[in-house]
């Protein structure tokens, strides 16, 4: 089994066609079903949604001191909005999960293998 990060990236300021309440409810429903299926098949490892990048704080060492600063590590228009970590036998299986996620949330999903799980 390998582990994959399925990440959802949003672009700041990019107006996506807003979902209607009905579409929103449908999307939540699809995600709930999907997460249940991920868990019941043992593919689910972790998942989460993140607050916007303005809520981020960076900690770094500079000149022997630890400095804490406001803001994301990189100022960019694209940022990580949420993720799933799944375990799957191969990329095709991970891509099948990803296609279900993108269908539910209507945003592109990046699929990236974790290093160090190659058993």
């Amino acid at each position, binding site marked *: 089994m390998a582990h994959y990060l399925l990440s959802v990236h949003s672009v700041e300021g990019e107006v996506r066609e807003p979902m209607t309440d009905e579409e929103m409810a449908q999307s939540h429903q699809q995600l709930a079903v999907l997460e249940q299926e991920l868990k019941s098949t043992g593919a689910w490892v972790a998942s989460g949604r993140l607050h916007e990048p303005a809520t981020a704080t960076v900690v770094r060492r500079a000149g022997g001191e630890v400095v804490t600063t406001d803001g994301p590590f990189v100022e960019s228009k694209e940022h990580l909005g949420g993720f799933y970590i799944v375990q799957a036998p*191969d990329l095709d299986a991970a891509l099948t999960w990803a296609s279900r996620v993108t269908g539910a949330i209507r945003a592109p999903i990046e699929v990236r293998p974790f290093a160090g799980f190659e058993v």
Partner: protein
Amino acid sequence: MGDGDAAAGLDPAEVGRIFREESGRSLAALIRAFGDIDVAEDAVQEAFAVALGKWPRDGVPPNPGGWITTTARNQAIDRLRRESRGRQLLSEVAVLAPGGGEPAIPQEVGPVPDDRLRLIFTCCHPALSTQAQLALTLRLLGGLSTRQVARSFLVSEATMARRLVRAKRKIKAARIPYRVPEAHELPDRLRPVLAVIYLIYNAGLSGPAGPGLCAEAIRLARILAGLLPDELEVAGLLALLLLTESRRASRTRADGSLVLLGEQDRTQWDQALITEGQTILRRCLRRNHPGAYQLQAAINAVHADAATVEQTDWPQIVALYDQLLVAAPTPVVALNRAIAIGEVQGPAVALALVDELDLDTYYPFHATRADLLGRLGRHREAAAAYQRAAAMAPTDAEQDFLRRGGRASREADR
């Protein structure tokens, strides 16, 4: 070893040719057995070194493919035992192999799919870029060296080596599987495989590597058609390549310049290839499920049926292009359809259709406009269009051809 050489009558080039012909299957089997492309490639390379020493002396073994697989497998196991990382890999594959012990090479009998079939779906996995798909297919299934692959696509050997390393790294890290897609996935997964084989053929038609790549594409299409006999588009692609290949001798003059279809010496067309292509095509068209490759093959088959250009059944070709435009609605197909319509309804109708297309960066668009304008007597505009086409054409032969057209138009304008 000199006497032995003479006795076996085999020089290293001949060993290389037979080896290349036979080793694709062995490489695919080893990749499957060891789950590691690099290990398999190194092992086949070592088997080649053994063959170079042995075959000229002892002759080619009765089953060269089997010999290569066994020799390479033993080389791989020996080498892996010497390395600690290798011992770990061996213990992992031993777990997977039935009966434990050493990695088993699956026997190819009955309905068991050929390992090359799995491998071509790995090489052409949609998670890899088209460039990577092309390079991997030629390297791993075509048996071309990195240098030969680089030369085929006009990039440096170092660039191609990096591209291959990156692609192999992705296959390994992301676990792109070695398996034949299931029936419901096949249409989507077959598309890039057919596209790669077609691109390899076309790179051979116009690129510097020439006939070698065309032959390789036909070889891959034959293997695929043999392994997937029920997939009509695979047969359609094979028919298309055979029918296109039949015109090779008449496509260029002795000086390398191009000859248009209408001006080719049709007695030079290879009738054996035409017959084979048409037979395959008829068999799949009978199933009445024509896709883009079958339709392109059918268009080529209509050309092949005409003993002279005047005898060409243009209405039939237009009807096929109408269908092709539905199956593959691209501006390039629309351009070729317009050319065929021009043969039935005249250059003015064709030019009106061509001028609607958004193909400004595609040099055949300008070449087509130049030809149509010339036929309408608008020589000055034709000369300008030839000039634009020539400036964009990728090869010397095509540039020369278009410049000649431009000169003729300028003379006609006087």
